[in-house]
């Protein structure tokens, strides 16, 4: 991995994508979309793990490199920084249902790095950030609708 200056590092996010037992349908589409994001310079993939949670809650983590033929992900795997520690596995798996498999993806938002760096050079400091879930937007709209309907 190329060394990255801390000042030039973009925000780092993660997702845990769960595939309930019997519901996975891997066609390569996810890998292709991920590769497109990397190739366009939008993100840099920092780490990937595959977690499985048994019916009794036992969690097992698998490295991407141990999955066999990686296809589109081969080049991404070669550049992983392995940010996650073993102790992160249980924390991430806490959200999983027993009997499921999940992919954990950690990435740097390269698109945001120049703006964040400029904000720091301008004297700004990040005091809050976050994500607005679609569910929250829906709830807000529904509350608005209900208030309009009742005249509240």
């Amino acid at each position: 991995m190329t060394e990255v200056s801390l000042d030039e590092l973009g925000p780092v996010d993660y997702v845990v994508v769960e595939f309930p037992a019997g519901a996975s349908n891997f066609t390569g589409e996810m890998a292709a979309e991920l590769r497109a994001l990397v190739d366009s310079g939008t993100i840099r993939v920092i780490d990937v793990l595959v977690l499985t949670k048994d019916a009794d809650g036992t969690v097992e983590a698998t490295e991407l490199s141990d999955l066999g033929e990686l296809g589109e992900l081969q080049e991404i795997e070669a550049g992983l920084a392995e940010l996650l520690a073993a102790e992160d596995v249980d924390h991430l798996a806490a959200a999983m249902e027993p009997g499921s498999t999940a992919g954990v993806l950690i990435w740097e938002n390269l698109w945001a790095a120049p703006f964040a760096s400029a904000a720091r050079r301008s004297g700004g400091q990040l005091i809050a950030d976050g994500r607005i879930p679609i569910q929250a937007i829906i709830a807000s709209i529904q509350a608005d609708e209900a208030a309009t309907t009742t005249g509240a």
Partner: protein
Amino acid sequence: MPVRPSRVGRVGVIRAPVAKTAVVAAAVTPGPAPIAKTAVVAAAVTPRVGRRRI
């Protein structure tokens, strides 16, 4: 299959157990609710359309 030895013994970056979020696919599936949710959400985040703040 265990994780690589290089991951063991390090301080983690995920500081606490992660809570499960509501599943988006279920939330935007049209149901008995009176709102056509997907279209309304899209409108709410469309430039110059959005919603009134007050």
